[in-house]
Each structure stands twice: as structure tokens, then as C-alpha cells.
């Protein structure tokens, strides 16, 4: 999708968007569904005494059903939040504190989103113990490693459904079954999964699931937490106030945001399979275009992944310089230079990738409006710029001369 800049604004150059894992444009149908709730139909859904409130409440409950329908849940199991980050906070802190008399140990994975990892760090500060599991080189966790990490005082396991950087899909049914067996609460961050993989919580043994809107073509700033009723999972609220959402999350519900997320999820349920078929074809095209470049590496399991994601490392070329060269494309990189902290991607490091390969990575994520022409353009410009940057690269020169780079003593500063 080539976004058009409004004529009256001075805007920077808008390239082809291939960063769908960072965020999605709203589907136009979603925007249409939201607007009325910003104009005449502005009521507070908690206003029980007049029509503005009643109609807003009805819209919220309709959206709740739409969200529940996509994931095979009961609408009463959906708690609205400001996004998956808040959902992760509520799930982890809420469950840890509620069940702390049962135990103080949590298990998660090194490749989780910061919203999970930083929340775990905070819980450690509060006196809990957390085990951060390693992953295999393909990004998947080893079930034996998980089993071995479980202790008698483990109360929660958190494993994301689909990884945001490398797109791999964890074995959620197996992890859930193990947790059920041991009486441990299982939370999964599904921010990158909704609308991309089938989720049926009627059969999937997950107790808490974080959901977002803006990775499924809805607006930013709204999400939800699935909280299982059977068997019941309890949480300590993190936002206190009017007791909204059965006391689990206080705060006036933003009808327009919720209507948007509901419509987005309704569209996903109706169109997901057809869309994924189309995206799989595009993914193949892009992968085939790039896989024969010399010294290129695919990050993450080749099959157990969502087709929207392609994360590759181009050895001896640094990610930020590559992004600078492919001006017509909007993608992201695991390179330190592109992160505010100057550290390379911790997810790629957890796969066992060397720092160089983490610095040399490009994450390309496609979606609803990606076209074949855009894929072809992307492949061409990436190949051209990789070649150009290798001409500039002393590491490529040494590699071509047969030098073993792992034997060099670098004079680092």
C-alpha cells in the first residue's frame, strides 16, 4: 500500500510499507465503524440512565462478541485494555499477585516482547523469581527444557504465540497441556497471532491471552485480555477506579476504539484464510527472490511461522546502512544502530546468532495491501543494495580472500 500524504502537510517521503509487524493501517471499514462514536454517538457506555449510554454500551458488547468470536471465547472472558502491553502487565502482575500464596516462581522465554520481559523484571524486584528459557536456533522452545524448569512453586508460564521479530509459532497446545497437567496458569501474548493463525480457546488450554488491535488492522491504543472462566482464573486489578470490566480494569471504555477493534476482528474472522493464502504466495515470491544471495540466512523456523514475516541476515552488510539504501521500502532491522539503545536484537542473539548477523538483519513483514509489484521491487532493491554495500565492506573483502573472521583480534573501541 503506497500511502498518500495529505497535500497541505509537509511530509517526508513515504516508501512501500513492509513493516506490518510494527503496526498496520486501519482497514477503511474499521475507520467507518469508529467515526459515529466520535461524533453524535459520544455517550459513556457506563451511563446507565440515558440513551447515549445505552447505545454506547450496546456497541461495546457487540464488539466484545466480535473479539470473542475470532478466538473461540465467551464474550464474558474479554477484558478491554489500552493494548497488549497493558494486557501483559495485567496478566502477569495480576495473576502473580493473586496466586502468590501458592508460589513465587514464573517461567517465560528470552525471546518475549519487552512488555513481558520488563514486567517480569519488575516482578523480580517485587520478590518473585523468574526463569527465562533459552530457545533453540530455530526460535522454538524445547519442551524438555520447559519441563525441567517447572518447580513445585511455579505459578505462571508465559510464552508468546507468534514472535514479533522472527514470526515463529510456538507449540501452544503442548505447552498449555503441560501447564494444565501441573496446575500452572498459562499466559500467551497473541498480539502478532490474531488474524494470522487459527485460535480456538474452547479447545486450546490457555488461561490468559493478550490481544491487540493495531496488528490486526484496527486502531492503536486499544486491546484486550482474555481471562478464562472455566476453569476460573483470578487476577488482581492493576488499574483501580470505577470497577469496570468486572473489577479487573477500571476506566471509561472508549467506545470508538472498541468498535474499531471489534470490526477489525470481525473482518479477520471472515477474511483470514483467504488473505493468508494470498500472503503465503507473496512470501514465497520474496523468499525465493532472496534466498540465493550469497551468505544470506533465514532467522527462525522455516515452516512453523506466519507467512507475513521474513527476517533475514545479509552477512557482512550492516542493517542500518542497508535500510538507508533501500529508500523505497519501509522495513526494520535487528541492528543496534536502529535501536535507541545501540544493542543488537536480543531475539536474534537468543537464536545463537552472532552479533554480526544480528547487526546484518532485515525484518520484512507484509500484509493486507502488499502487492506482487511491491515484492518484486523489494527483492530488486535489496539485492542491489546488498551488492553495493558489500563492495564497501572490509568484512566481505576478507571473506572473499578466504580469511576466517573468527580468528581476527579486533581493536574495538
Amino acid at each position: 500500500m503506497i500511502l498518500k500524504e495529505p497535500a497541505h502537510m509537509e511530509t517526508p517521503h513515504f516508501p512501500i510499507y513492509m513493516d506490518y509487524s510494527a503496526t498496520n493501517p486501519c482497514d477503511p471499514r474499521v475507520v467507518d465503524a469508529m467515526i459515529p462514536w466520535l461524533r453524535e454517538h459520544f455517550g459513556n457506555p457506563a451511563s446507565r440512565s440515558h440513551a447515549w449510554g445505552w447505545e454506547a454500551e450496546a456497541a461495546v458488547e457487540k464488539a466484545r462478541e466480535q473479539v470473542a468470536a475470532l478466538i473461540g471465547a465467551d464474550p464474558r472472558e474479554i477484558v478491554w485494555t489500552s493494548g497488549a502491553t497493558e494486557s501483559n502487565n495485567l496478566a502477569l502482575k495480576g495473576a502473580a499477585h493473586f496466586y502468590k500464596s501458592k508460589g513465587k516462581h514464573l517461567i517465560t522465554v528470552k525471546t518475549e516482547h519487552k512488555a513481558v520481559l520488563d514486567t517480569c523484571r519488575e516482578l523480580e524486584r517485587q520478590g518473585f523469581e523468574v526463569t527465562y528459557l533459552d530457545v533453540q536456533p530455530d526460535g522454538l522452545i524445547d519442551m524438555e527444557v520447559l519441563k525441567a524448569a517447572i518447580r513445585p512453586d511455579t505459578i505462571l508460564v508465559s510464552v508468546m504465540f507468534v514472535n514479533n521479530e522472527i514470526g515463529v509459532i510456538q507449540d501452544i497446545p503442548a505447552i498449555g497441556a503441560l501447564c494444565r497437567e501441573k496446575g500452572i496458569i498459562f499466559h500467551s501474548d497473541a498480539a502478532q497471532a490474531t488474524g494470522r493463525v487459527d485460535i480456538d480457546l474452547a479447545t486450546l488450554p490457555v488461561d490468559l491471552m493478550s490481544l491487540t488491535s493495531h496488528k490486526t488492522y484496527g486502531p492503536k491504543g486499544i486491546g484486550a485480555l482474555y481471562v478464562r472462566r472455566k476453569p476460573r482464573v483470578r487476577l488482581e486489578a492493576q488499574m483501580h477506579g470505577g470497577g469496570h470490566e468486572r473489577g479487573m480494569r477500571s476506566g471509561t471504555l472508549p467506545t470508538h476504539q472498541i468498535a474499531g477493534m471489534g470490526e477489525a476482528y470481525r473482518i479477520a474472522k471472515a477474511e483470514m484464510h483467504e488473505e493468508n493464502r494470498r500472503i503465503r504466495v507473496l512470501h514465497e515470491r520474496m523468499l525465493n527472490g532472496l534466498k540465493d544471495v550469497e551468505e544470506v540466512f533465514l532467522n527462525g523456523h522455516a515452516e512453523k511461522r506466519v507467512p507475513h514475516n521474513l527476517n533475514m541476515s545479509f552477512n557482512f552488510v550492516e542493517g542500518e546502512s542497508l535500510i538507508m539504501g533501500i529508500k523505497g521500502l519501509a522495513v526494520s532491522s535487528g541492528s543496534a544502530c536502529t535501536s535507541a539503545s545501540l544493542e543488537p536484537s536480543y531475539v536474534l542473539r537468543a537464536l545463537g546468532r552472532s552479533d554480526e548477523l544480528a547487526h546484518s538483519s532485515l525484518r520484512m513483514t507484509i500484509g493486507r495491501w502488499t502487492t506482487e509489484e511491491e515484492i518484486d521491487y523489494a527483492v530488486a532493491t535489496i539485492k542491489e543494495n546488498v551488492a553495493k554495500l558489500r563492495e564497501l565492506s572490509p568484512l566481505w573483502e576478507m571473506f572473499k580472500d578466504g580469511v576466517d573472521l573468527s580468528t581476527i583480534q579486533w581493536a574495538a573501541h
Partner: protein
Amino acid sequence: MAYSEKVVDHYENPRNVGSFEKGDESVGTGMVGAPACGDVMKLQIKVNPVTGVIEDARFKTYGCGSAIASSSLVTEWVKGKTLDEAASIKNSAIAEELALPPVKIHCSILAEDAIKAAVNDYKQKHVLAEAATS
């Protein structure tokens, strides 16, 4: 992030990319940085053995746009300078010329280190040569 025009220019049209012939006695080579940090610069200077003036320079860099620009700029600046003049080029001058933001200052520091490394390499080779003949 938005790059300064000069950084973009050096990236699009890098000056003096490449390597001198291996075994050329009039060349000093400096290689600084590390792949683990995401920055490696190789800078080469060709020195006139009689006048001690740098006549030509080449670079190759693995790194971001600012790193490439810093090293490309440096190959322009060292030409026509003596070894000592080149070694006194300050990273702050590089950063100012390229309008580098604070988060990219370390690229200019690496470029300054690269010059010094190339100069030292040349000096070492020629001290040894002199020592061998004396």
C-alpha cells in the same frame, strides 16, 4: 531517523572506496572497530616516502550510514596532509562537518581512530625498514 544531506551524499557517492595493492610499501593500513559492535573501518593511506605527505587514501566500512560517511570524509581530508597533520584530525571536526546527532558521535571517533591506526602502521613499517638498513 533523518540523515543530514552530507551523510546521504557520502553514502550515495562514497569517495575513494577500495583497497591499494597488497604489499605496497608506501601504504599504511588501519583497521578499527569490531563486527560485534556493528562498526568496522579499514582506512589506507598512500604516503610519499620522500615528502611524508599522504597522496592518496582508500576506505572500506561495515557500519551504518554515519560510519560510512565519516570514513569517506576522512579519506578526502587526509589527502595532501603530512602524517602528523592527519593524525591530529579531531572527531569533533568530522561530527560537525557531517552534522552527526549525539547517538552517532561514536562513528566519528572510530574514523579518528582509523586515521591514527593507519598512520601508526605506516610509521612502524618504515621504522622497521630503517632499523633493518642501519
